[in-house]
């Protein structure tokens, strides 16, 4: 399913002294089954943007198209509900949404609400738990007995349980240690590869976006200021730094090597080993670096 924003604006607390413009004439397109990152500092409007996709917020002006549905200021709740059943959303600190007595019940909350075949999904729960890196013995445990990391994984599984066509991740790794961040990110990458949902990830960490996304939107002051493939974004370092962002360290290193040696890398998503290998082969082929 693809998502299209046409001239979307959103105003919080309209007609009060607290009125704020959170989105300003945003145009954006998320291709079906693609992975897109939305980057920007806190308060730039990233969360507001994605909450339009499942109708948690309605545009004050403009249209958000999700598949064949259109969400506008006056869209009926029936349409909104129809859209919602296609969209899974992992919020910041998703573990705060756990509430059931057992992990199993909590995982089935979403599928049940969205009118899916609960018995069918129940059978697949052990597999699902495995996919998020948990053992199926947790099914009968209370989610509140688990460790923080486990709780987050259960909450994520609760969103994935509906196998959404569109998967929205709102800083899903916030508050985790580096190892945990990597693991969670990997989990989503694997899921994306297997089920191919349209994935939209919000983050303020360039490294995360770099590891995952094929397209990027950079937001600032309620507007989309930059967009393009990661390479295009990385080429504009100055502009990024003005927005308190920077290109990932890994890309900085590769760019520095390119500058000093004249060797061009095919893209910046290379792992350290791949980059070293590429460099060695380039040198052997006569592309001699001026050291």
């Amino acid at each position: 399913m693809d998502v299209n924003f046409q001239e979307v604006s959103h105003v919080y607390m309209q007609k009060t002294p607290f009125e704020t413009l959170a989105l300003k004439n945003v145009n954006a397109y998320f291709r079906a089954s693609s992975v897109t990152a939305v980057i920007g500092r806190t308060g730039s409007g990233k969360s507001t943007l994605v909450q339009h996709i499942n109708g948690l917020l309605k545009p004050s002006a403009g249209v958000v198209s999700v598949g064949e549905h259109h969400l506008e200021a006056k869209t009926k709740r029936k349409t909104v509900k129809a859209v919602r059943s296609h969209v899974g959303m992992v919020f910041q600190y998703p573990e705060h949404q756990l509430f059931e007595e057992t992990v199993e019940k909590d995982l089935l909350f979403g599928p049940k609400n969205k009118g899916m075949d609960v018995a069918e999904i129940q059978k697949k729960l052990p597999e699902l738990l495995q996919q998020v890196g948990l053992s199926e013995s947790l099914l009968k445990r209370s989610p509140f007995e688990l460790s923080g990391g486990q709780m987050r994984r259960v909450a994520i599984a609760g969103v994935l349980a509906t196998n959404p066509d569109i998967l929205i991740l709102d800083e899903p790794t916030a508050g985790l240690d580096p190892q945990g961040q990597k693991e969670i990110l990997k989990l989503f990458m694997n899921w994306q590869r297997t089920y191919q949902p349209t994935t939209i990830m919000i983050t303020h960490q360039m490294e995360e976006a770099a590891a995952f996304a094929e397209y990027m939107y950079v937001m600032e002051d309620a507007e989309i200021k930059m967009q393009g493939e990661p390479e295009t974004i990385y080429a504009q370092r100055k502009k990024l730094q003005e927005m308190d962002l920077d290109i990932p360290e890994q890309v900085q290193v590769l760019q520095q090597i390119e500058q000093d040696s004249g060797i061009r890398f095919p893209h910046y998503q290379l792992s350290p080993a791949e980059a070293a290998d590429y460099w060695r082969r380039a040198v052997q082929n006569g592309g001699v670096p001026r050291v």
Partner: protein
Amino acid sequence: MFENVIIGQYLPGRSYLHHMDPRAKIAAVVFLIIVIFLVNSWHGYALFGGAAIAVYFLSGVPFRYIRKGMFPVFILVILTFFLHAFFTRDGEVLFSIGMFSFYEEGIRQGLFISLRLLLLVYFTSLLTLTTSPIDLTDALEQMFSPLERFKFPAYDVAMMMSIAIRFIPTLLQETEKIIKAQTARGADFNKGSMRDRMQAFVSLLVPLFVRAFRRAEDLAYAMEARGYNGGEGRTKLRLLVWGWRDTLCCCLIAVFGVILLFLRQ
């Protein structure tokens, strides 16, 4: 989602009322509440209405806000009006509809009570709209501190109140976040069968309580870590200052009260 809740909401501003000492405002509101129950003549209510309009212009609060805040009270007001209109049987019969007769005294009392309720809510909401919660608790603490002689823990009560008030926005935010998260998981808080809606509310309340308890614990540790051990001998960062506005207001209110007493029937 909570854009329409204005109970206890504070609107920052720079009006005459905003600049007044909260103690003066509280005293004035308490005085007005007492006086309003003594008024029993049309002249009195006319005077009170005039005062209400004057205070409205002194407050700088947009009318929209007051209207929104008063709306829930209207239902109560209309209900009490009809109760009085139906059940008071004094004076002449004004008119009857079917088996119900409306008496002069009933209508009169109904109107009086409704006006009383409206004015009462009006003045108290202006108090909270123009006074920050911190100022309110500070003022209450000072006003109750003479009672400490009788073992009334004014300081602790004020501290509890300010902590509670401090966490209202946090809890509202949290509530909104959890509602969003559960809505994204397909929960429906507004429509659906009783059972579904109960389930939706459980999915909101459990996380909310879990978080609130955890937060209370964190706050207790944080306060202790900064050496908090009760109110004994603590000084204040923000001092309340009594100014000319406050003296003027108290004088005016006192004169107002005396005039109203003369207008009693």
